[in-house]
Structures are given as C-alpha cells and as structure tokens.
C-alpha cells in the first residue's frame, strides 16, 4: 500500500513541469501539450484522494476533467489551424497584435 503523499508529490512535480512548459516555450502546440500535462497532474491527485477516501467521486471528477481536456484540445487545435492560416506562425511571442 503506497502512501497517498507519494501520489500527491508526483502530481505536484508533473504540475510544475507543465507550468514550466507553458511559461517558457514559444511553440503554441507545445504549450497546449503542457496544459495536458497539468490536467494529468490534477487527475493523479483526484484519483489518489478518491482511493484514500474509498469513494468513486474523485474518479468521476477525473472523467469530467478528461472530457474538458478533449474539448479544450479540439477547440485549441482549431484555433491554432486558423492562426497558422492567417499569421503563418505558431510562435506565441509573435502573436502580439493586441500588445501595446
């Protein structure tokens, strides 16, 4: 029986890697992939605590998080295609039309 703490530590590590990816990369596709990493970290925590409390509610929430991730990936990738068609770039720091 593995302590719940270990899962929470794993979740926070994965979350931090995802945050580093979102903040440092230029490629919008890799920023979206980092968001998937963050959502997976959240899911690990949810499942670990659901297992600790002997309740499936956390797993149901994890399923809703996965649903959201699917919706977010579909819309985000559609946005990237539209963006690439108009600006010919996928770099986040070159999309600065609204930047003063």
């Amino acid at each position, binding site marked *: 029986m593995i302590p719940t703490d270990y899962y929470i530590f794993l979740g926070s590590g994965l979350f931090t890697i995802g945050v580093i990816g979102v903040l440092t990369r230029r490629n919008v*596709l890799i920023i979206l992939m980092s968001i998937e990493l963050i959502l997976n970290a959240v899911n690990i925590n949810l499942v670990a605590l659901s297992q600790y409390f002997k309740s499936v509610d956390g797993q149901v929430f994890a399923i809703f998080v996965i649903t959201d991730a*699917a919706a977010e990936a579909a819309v985000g990738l559609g946005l990237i*295609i539209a963006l690439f068609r108009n600006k010919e770039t996928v770099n*986040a*720091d070159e999309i600065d039309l609204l930047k003063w």
Partner: protein
Amino acid sequence: MLELGTFIIFSVTALVSAVFVITRRNAVHSAIWLTVTLFAVSGIYLLQHAEFLFAVQIILYVGGIMVLFLFVVMLVDIDVALKQARFARQWQVALVTAILLLAIVGYALYNHGQGLNLPARPMVNAPAQNTQAVGMALYQNYMLPVEIASVLLLVAMVGAVIMAKRKLE
C-alpha cells in the same frame, strides 16, 4: 515492495518523459514523449485500482487527443520551427517562478516531515468492480453533470469545425 517498485518505475517514467515533452525541439517528438507520459499515468491509475479510468486514459487520451495533436503538428509547418529558438525570452524568470512554486507546494506538503498527516486507513478489500461503481455514480448522482458535459462536447465540436473552416462567410 513490488507495488512500490512499480510506482517508482511509472512515476520516474512520467516525470522524465514530461521533461522531454517540454524540451524537445521537434513538436512531433514532444507529442511522442507526451504519449509515453500518458501511458505512465495510466499505469499509476491501474496501481490505484481505478481500472475504468485506466481504460479511458488510454482510449481517449492516447487514442483520441494525441492523434488529433499529431494531425495538427503535421498540418502546421514544422521545418521553420526547427530552426528557431525553442524558448521565449522570459524563460529565466519563468523557470525561477516555477521552481519557487514547486518549493512552496513541496514545503506545504512536506509539513516538517509529517507529510499530509493523513490518518492511515486500512486497505479494505480492493473495490473489485470499479467500472460498475463509476457507472452507477455517473448515471445516478452525476446525471446532470454528464448531460452538461455532453452539451460541452457538442459545443466544442461545432467550435472546432468553425475555427478550422477555410473561410468564414
């Protein structure tokens, strides 16, 4: 002991391949490493007796979302991106901020060596019918959220089609 070893293997795989996801130059390689991470996380789910979520992770994430990602990576021009700088200009500040975040969270979780201090619960018999339990919860207690999620997916589908359409008229 075997359980702990399996956990260590899965978590190290997940963390190392997550680092590869955010450092590779080629977006295709990042997507492949993200697939490895997702498989490792599904192994973690299996270790926690969340069998239904394990199947959902592999079918939906690896089979659905990652294929979508690979399609879009192939659609946009990767040859140009290969020659450009990988990281944005603010990467030092971002790295320090993220490490600080990890330090704060780790300090809060470490809690002077006590950890979360969760009272130990005896592992009663492992829930043998995880899928049944999740299904019952989804269609009884969480019926309205399931319906809302289906509407959300419909909206996302329409939104993705509108966004990727060639021309808005």
